[in-house]
């Protein structure tokens, strides 16, 4: 592990994987420090210094997944700066509400699961 990036295991379930090229599990590597507004730096803007940096948190990860990995219907994934109703975020098998939700500061090798609630029977 290099100290300037974090590698996370991200898993989708409950149908949410359909928005992410139908791939359930992927390793995602993100910078350890990111723009304070959670904007995802594009490769060409790398030399531009953002006005503020923060440690990478779950809110940034959501933005990052939307920018880099989402392939279909982004409106079904996020609403404003968080996930859409009916989606639950799990941090190392714990409801993200218990971990600070979007403000949770990610650690290398964290396991993040994003699921849609199921309604079928």
């Amino acid at each position: 592990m290099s100290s300037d990036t974090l590698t996370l295991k991200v898993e989708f379930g409950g149908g949410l994987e359909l928005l992410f090229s139908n791939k359930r599990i992927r390793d995602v590597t993100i910078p350890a420090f990111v723009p304070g507004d959670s904007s995802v730096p594009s490769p060409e803007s790398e030399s531009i210094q953002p006005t503020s940096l923060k440690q990478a948190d779950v809110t940034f990860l959501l933005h990052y997944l939307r920018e880099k990995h989402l392939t279909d219907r982004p409106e079904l994934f996020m609403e404003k700066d968080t996930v859409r109703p009916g989606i639950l975020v799990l941090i190392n098998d714990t409801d993200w509400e218990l971990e600070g939700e979007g403000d949770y500061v990610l650690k290398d090798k964290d396991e993040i699961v994003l699921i849609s609630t199921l309604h079928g029977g």
Partner: protein
Amino acid sequence: MQDVENTALSESDLSRSPSLHRDDYLRYGRQMILEGFGLPGQAGLQRSSVVVVGAGGLGCPALQYLAASGVGRIGIIDHDMVELSNLQRQILHNESTVGVYKAISAAQAIQKLNSKIQVDIITEALHSSNAIALLYPYNVILDCTDNAPTRYLLSDTAVSLGKPLVSGAAQKFEGQLSVYNFGDNGPCYRCIFPRPPAMETVGTCEETGVLGAVTGVIGTMQALETIRIITGLHDGKPTLLLYSALTVPFFRSVKLRSKKPSCIACGGDGVKNGTIEETDYVAFCGGVRPNWEQKGLSSG
């Protein structure tokens, strides 16, 4: 419900539970010798009442194991009738009950398995206007339904009645299981999912596929969670079980938040009454049922 202590039983215990018939020791012996279960556990099951909402893919296996275990009174709420397309997973129904109300078909099946229990058949559709009255008589409510509006209605009603809600769901190769509104400070469904998802969300409006055995695993575990609640074997910690039949590991147990003070259904912030919109309960997916024959021909 009650906390059952694991104690050796004497003849005097027996006389305090005169309702357990001598045959029942034979019938339920294999579970009565379990540690923490015993005669108190069996008598507890017999005194309990459980209502299963939905006699479909989840409800059938749940009903089957609840009846087999000796739960004294079981209500079945379902206003649909059995169709041939149900038999791939709704294993209490059979070819001869196609066209019969599911609640009746399921009741016949479990009564045949256990004639000693009382089975209530409710073929009315569950609405916000009748939910309290229909669910009131039972100790535990099982959500075995197949749509979001009824799930919100069941959760809000369980909160109003102060009863645990054992909630299962299944779709494709996946399942989810949780007990809501239970334990010291357990959340309700709305604590986790405050608002219903948008109607255009993945897989809500069209009937999606599901593997029968996946509903079987989740429905059976709903019976098991109910039995744990009744016999005092449930630890009351809010947990969400995620199941995926095609990925390893098959299961994840997720630790859930406690009840939210700000929850519009169960919260203590005084905002709860009147803020739940009736529209949450209106089925937003009234669309036509897909033509499975055509689907079978055109999708892989």
